[in-house]
């Protein structure tokens, strides 16, 4: 643009009717105002993904079951089972009216198959948790942590569990 035209543009209020209306409504008044920046609260990774309603990647469902993880979760499951038995027995006997010999005599009339199943369900989790517990205590001494040793002790523990269960059932 020429210098003269620039000088004309610099005068406020000249744009609307200037140049015989030729320039028309092409020049508008623009107001620049400064504001403090809007402060967003810091959002962590999980909050952000929840807000965007994103699905979670599959994890437990796609990981191949291996003897390491299966033995480990079985240790926890058998522990919870035996704890369930102990707590149910103690709280139950506190709440029930008669003494234990009475209930034992009542149980004697149950079928042998039922009794055998009950004894197995008591003996197996206890035996498994005990044998794997020994394996855990060995690990806590920082021994047997190589993967080949983990596998070997795992199989040994399973054999010991079967033997201990049979021993307990035959008492």
């Amino acid at each position, binding site marked *: 643009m020429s210098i003269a035209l620039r000088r004309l543009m610099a005068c406020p209020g000249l744009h609307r009717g200037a140049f015989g209306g030729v320039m028309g409504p092409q020049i508008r008044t623009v107001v620049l105002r400064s504001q403090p920046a809007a*402060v967003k*609260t*810091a959002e*962590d*990774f*999980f909050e952000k993904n929840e807000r965007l309603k994103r699905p979670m990647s599959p994890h437990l469902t796609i990981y191949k079951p291996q003897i390491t993880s299966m033995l480990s979760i079985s240790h*926890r499951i058998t*522990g*919870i089972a*035996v*704890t369930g038995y*102990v*707590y149910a*027995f*103690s*709280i*139950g*006997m*506190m709440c029930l009216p008669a*003494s*234990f*010999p009475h209930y*034992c005599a009542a*149980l*004697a009339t149950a079928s*042998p*198959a039922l*009794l*055998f199943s009950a*004894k197995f369900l008591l003996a197996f989790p206890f035996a498994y948790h*005990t044998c794997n*517990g*020994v394996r*855990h*205590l060995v690990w*806590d001494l920082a021994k047997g942590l190589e993967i080949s040793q983990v596998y070997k002790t795992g199989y040994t523990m399973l054999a010991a569990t079967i033997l201990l269960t049979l021993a307990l059932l035959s*008492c």
Partner: protein
Amino acid sequence: MALALVIRCLPRSMNGSIRTSHMWSKGQLNGSIFKHYPAAGLLAKDTNAMVAVAPRREMSDGGDHVKLWTAERALSVGLLGIIPAAFIVPSPAMDYLLAVSLVMHCHWGIEASVVDYIRPAIFGPVIPKVAIASLYGLSIFALGGLIYFSYSDVGLVNAVKMFWKLDMRNILKLVCMVLPKLTLRVTHYQYS
């Protein structure tokens, strides 16, 4: 949160290392920052990477876990001895000792499972606390129940022995009859 605001306020033209050294001189890179923002350690190095830091959500921060851990292992080893001893040398004292050590071991085990699975990130702030409190209540009742059982009834060891003695003769007879026949069938299969 304050850390994020500080990062935003610094001009973008500064590269990562200048920004971090600026924050280091302001004393903002020490203390609890590394505890709650584990990736903040990367910011202390001279990198240009922009790291997304996420705070850890933990139910109980800090505290020395070592004593509890050692006590748990000691109790486990003790229990390995107490359970056979209680059955081999039964007495009321052994019954009480077995009750206390068994319930403590069970309680610590279930507490670890509850803390692992019933997390604030999934269940919110209230339910995990309710779960732990319920576990404490159950354990107290279980211990009371076992002590009461040993005091006014036969005791845990005798109860197990009595239950185990229930008539198993029929099952054993069946097993002794069937098992040899099964093994013969498997090992002496005749190919015709």
